[in-house]
């Protein structure tokens, strides 16, 4: 990627500099797209394409990045864009998307090797709680950091949704187990009131009231069981999100970042 650095047509364009300098990437992109079209296939056009790629990446527009990488592969070849780089870039885009299945599919489709790091990291980020730490066996510093993160899993809160479901037989107990005592108490009182009303109505042979409060009570009772399950699942999902953020923050050298600079 050395020869294109001399061509600074797009980077030196006063309009582009003005818009990029003021943070107006939207207008900068419209100028860049025009300049790239004019210089397509040339080092100047490639410089514009790199700036466009960088702008899309900065804004997290990964679908546009994906599309633009393919277009760059169609318009530019060696020495500007190394042969075989585009499939690797597409794998990296899938990694940035956070889609482990797509990373593996694209890596297999392109017949790429040496992407174990990305594959392992994306799989770990996909299922951070159930990912087997022994699968993170590569030797790179990224994998070592991943293993440390996975070792910390035991320190994060974890609740069994199945146990919460079973405890939900007593209204509100599932939520208390999941760390929501007030919601559990509210659920207990509500269900107690409805069950009590139903029992009272049956005792007084007020069957219309019994059917009404019994129906509503049954709905709230089953809903309370589900609420305990959901609350426990949320505790685990919260932990998973925290782990996922830490795994995503593991520094990885990406060719797409180098290209977009």
């Amino acid at each position, binding site marked *: 990627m050395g020869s294109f650095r001399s061509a600074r047509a797009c980077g030196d364009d006063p309009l582009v500099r003005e818009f990029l300098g003021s943070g107006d990437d939207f207008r900068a992109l419209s100028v860049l797209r025009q300049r790239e079209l004019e210089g397509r296939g040339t080092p100047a056009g490639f410089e514009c394409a790199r700036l466009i790629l960088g702008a899309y990446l900065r804004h997290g527009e990964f679908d546009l990045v994906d599309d633009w990488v393919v277009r760059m592969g169609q318009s530019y070849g060696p020495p500007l864009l190394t042969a075989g780089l585009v499939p690797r870039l597409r794998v990296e885009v899938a990694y940035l998307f956070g889609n482990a299945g797509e990373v593996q599919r694209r890596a297999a489709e392109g017949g790429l090797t040496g992407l174990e790091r990305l594959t392992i990291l994306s799989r770990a980020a*996909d*299922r*951070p*709680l*159930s990912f087997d730490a022994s699968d993170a066996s590569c030797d790179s510093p990224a994998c070592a950091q991943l293993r440390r993160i996975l070792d910390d899993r035991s320190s994060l809160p974890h609740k069994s949704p199945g146990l919460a479901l079973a405890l939900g037989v007593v209204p*509100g107990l599932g*939520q208390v187990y999941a*760390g*929501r005592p*007030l*919601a559990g108490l*509210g*659920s207990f009182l*509500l269900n107690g009131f409805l069950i009590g009303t139903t029992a009272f109505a049956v005792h007084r*042979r*007020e*069957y*219309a*009231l019994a*059917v*009404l409060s019994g129906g509503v009570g049954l*709905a*709230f009772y*089953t*809903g*309370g*069981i*589900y*609420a305990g399950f*959901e*609350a426990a*699942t*949320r505790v*685990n*999902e*919260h932990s*998973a999100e925290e782990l996922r953020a830490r795994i995503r923050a593991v520094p990885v050298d990406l060719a797409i970042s180098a290209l977009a600079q």
Partner: protein
Amino acid sequence: MRAGDVTRRNSSRFGVFVFFAALMVAGSAAFAAPSLAGRCLMMTGAGHGACRSPAPAVRAVSPPLAAAAAPIRPADRIDFADFAGAYSIYRLVSATDDHRRCRLQPTCSLFAARAARQLGLLRGLLMGFARAQMSHSDQDGFLPQVIGSDGNFIYLDPVERWIHGDL
């Protein structure tokens, strides 16, 4: 009071219950079917089933594009539009407040209607009753929050958040 009075009183109360139940069903049916109601309850602002025409079974596309036509999303399934209009009636009654009372967005009723639309009636109802009993807070930072019109926080908890993948 004679012994037969108790039975008579219970019978009359059951009759009142049946009357109101029949009234609710009839009213709900009128709201649920646009052809019967003749208008949409746009004032409820929920884009509910009564105001949305069902997705066509087959899309009208030209033959070359037929293969690329996307299948009908299961999210658009309509088996019982918004609890047969009960949601619309509830919104008409509850729309008199200046500020919202529920601290969750969407509110539990709208959440149940959306869940029923996306996941089926039974699961939607179950999720609605479950959500009404859950903590109406940010749940230790799990739910993102925004400031409502009354200056208090509203916590975002859509149906999608209830669909968990493998962890």
